[in-house]
């Protein structure tokens, strides 16, 4: 098993004719994802890599039975695309687009909650369940099927850690990239809850960073009886306050959002925290060993 997406997921790609979407839809197909449809208003009737393109999500869903959407639409139109996917109750809706205005993100998340749809992102690398499905831009060759769930707020740092896991012979159940924006749909707790119910996931790697209090909330979730072992890494120990470190969400304001506070909360909750990204794979091995 895996979480959120697996071999039965039927994927729609919104904005499929764009430069990045066209490239990544091919990679998703190579990963084994069932990409059944794409949309691009004005280009209905065409196709990309053999995938039919529709003008509307409604048409794409009724023609192909797509169940989930991956959004590559540029930021000015991303809100409308997400609302369209949520209106048709595609689930999950994965928003890859970066620089989505925060007021748009707030509206999207409120509508998703009302419709009972799970949104991942925006500004995220997406999801990958090795051996099943991929929605997003994570490089295919990093992954190998296995027992470790990965949930992260960053992109390349996730690739770095997944690659190290795979090199160490440890495969993954699902990797979830939550995104680096101040307002994102899925949270660490949401992903942890799903991993906790997943029979295949035996340990979870949680990759956090400075800014906000998502890691502290994850720590509370772990402390409240999450029994799967968690190995965590938090980036930004040396970041200065008041400066945005690349991600819109990664800024330390006052005493809020520091790496030290997050690491302390995770350790107190019973997670193992790596000091360097290179230590994560070894700690996961130890955690799995204890369980076997």
């Amino acid at each position, binding site marked *: 098993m895996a979480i959120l997406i697996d071999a039965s997921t039927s994927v729609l790609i919104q904005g499929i004719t764009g430069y*990045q979407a066209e*490239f990544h839809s091919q990679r998703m197909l190579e990963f084994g994802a069932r990409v059944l449809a794409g949309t691009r208003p004005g280009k209905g009737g065409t196709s990309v890599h053999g995938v039919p393109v529709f003008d509307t999500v409604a048409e794409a869903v009724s023609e192909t039975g797509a169940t989930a959407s991956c959004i590559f639409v540029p*930021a*000015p139109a991303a809100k409308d695309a997400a609302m369209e996917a949520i209106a048709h109750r595609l689930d999950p809706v994965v928003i890859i687009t970066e*620089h*989505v*205005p*925060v*007021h*748009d*993100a*707030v*509206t999207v*998340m*409120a*509508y998703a909650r*009302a419709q009972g749809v799970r949104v991942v992102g925006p500004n995220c690398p997406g999801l990958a369940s090795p051996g099943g499905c991929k929605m997003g*831009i*994570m*490089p295919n060759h990093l992954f190998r099927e296995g027992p470790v769930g990965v949930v*992260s*707020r*960053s*992109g*390349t*740092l*996730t*690739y*770095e850690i997944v*690659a190290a896991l795979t090199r160490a012979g440890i495969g993954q159940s699902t990797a979830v990239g939550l995104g*680096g924006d*101040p*307002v994102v*749909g899925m949270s660490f707790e949401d992903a942890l809850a799903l991993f906790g119910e997943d029979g295949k996931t035996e340990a979870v790697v949680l*990759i956090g*960073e*400075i800014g*906000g209090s*998502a890691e502290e*909330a994850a720590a509370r979730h772990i402390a409240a009886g999450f029994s799967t072992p968690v190995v965590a890494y938090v*980036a*930004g*120990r*040396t*970041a*200065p306050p008041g*400066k*945005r*470190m*690349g*991600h*819109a*969400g*990664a800024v330390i304001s*006052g005493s809020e959002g520091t*790496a030290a506070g997050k690491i302390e909360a995770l350790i107190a909750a019973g997670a193992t925290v790596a*000091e*360097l*990204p*290179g230590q994560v794979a070894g700690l996961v091995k130890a955690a799995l060993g204890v369980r076997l």
Partner: protein
Amino acid sequence: MKLHEYQAKEIFSRYGIPTQRGIVVSWPEEVESLELRYPVVIKAQVLVGGRGKAGGIKLAADAAEARRHAQAILGMSIKGERVTRLLVAEAAQIEKEYYLAFTLDRMARRFVAIASEAGGIDIEEVARGSPERIVKHHVDPMLGFLPFHAREMASAVGLRGERVTAFAAIAAALYRLAVGEEAELAEINPLALADGTLLAVDAKLILDDSAAFRHGDRPLNEEMTELERAARDAGLSYVELDGELAIIGNGAGLVMSTLDVVAHFGGRPANFLDVGGGATTENMAAAMGIVLRKPGVRALFINIFGGITRCDDIARAVAASPPSVPVAVRLTGTNEEEGRRILQERGIRAFLDPEEAAREAVRLAGSTPWRS
């Protein structure tokens, strides 16, 4: 993007939020001829907080005193930010100070209206010390912030009668402003009761940079250093730090962790620079140009995990304009063999392991010896 008080107040007026009459000046001589009623308050226009404690706000009873204060405050440095503008405003006879703001609650994924009868001081201190003095309302974006929400907040901070409607009108206007201008924070502290009416004595606005494409008329500010501005213009994310080891990586999380790994081995990063996803030879050349322009840089560490970004593109940029300081390169991922070959031809060794590369970079920067 943070706005100066005077910029925020211009926007406040457009939305009908009352403020004191005030004029912006850049020279002490300008102060004497202003058509304002004395006493006036003279306020340094800086983006950092705590300007009052730093001596950046003074009251003046007449023109001569105003000029003396203006002379003293202009050119002053507040937490490293030089004062180049003053806001001179008619002083108000304040009876009581309230707090009112709309800000993003990341965990709730909503904007929250916050009001308090303990205005004029740091709201975070109030929240810590006496949270019962703070009233909050999370705004449902599908519903908006309705007039009765505003009246209930006014009533909850202890206002009665006509003052409830006055407060509610300001709160409604501030919400329209927060949505209309796409602010991450719209704050009035203090919202003062003066001469029987409510007015915004201070104004703080942080606008969402991602929404700039919908707001062509936004004012600019000078918060960024020259190199930070050059980086932004080149589409790069750059933050200046204090050390001597320049850093370039791809992906915000990876670069943050690179800074941590460098610090772990005893190095001092000179900057944060994220070339972003899908970096090209041109982006990379621009990135090197920016980080190496900072005075005092002694070595460069390039840490690339290729996904969309191709290692050969990165290597070509390094080979085309070899850095003026010693360089340690870590390349892995898409087209890594080609990338390493290009660098080897130039006599530059490319590492696969990020920690090994970081140790070498720290050694090259000649900082304090690394811990093993």
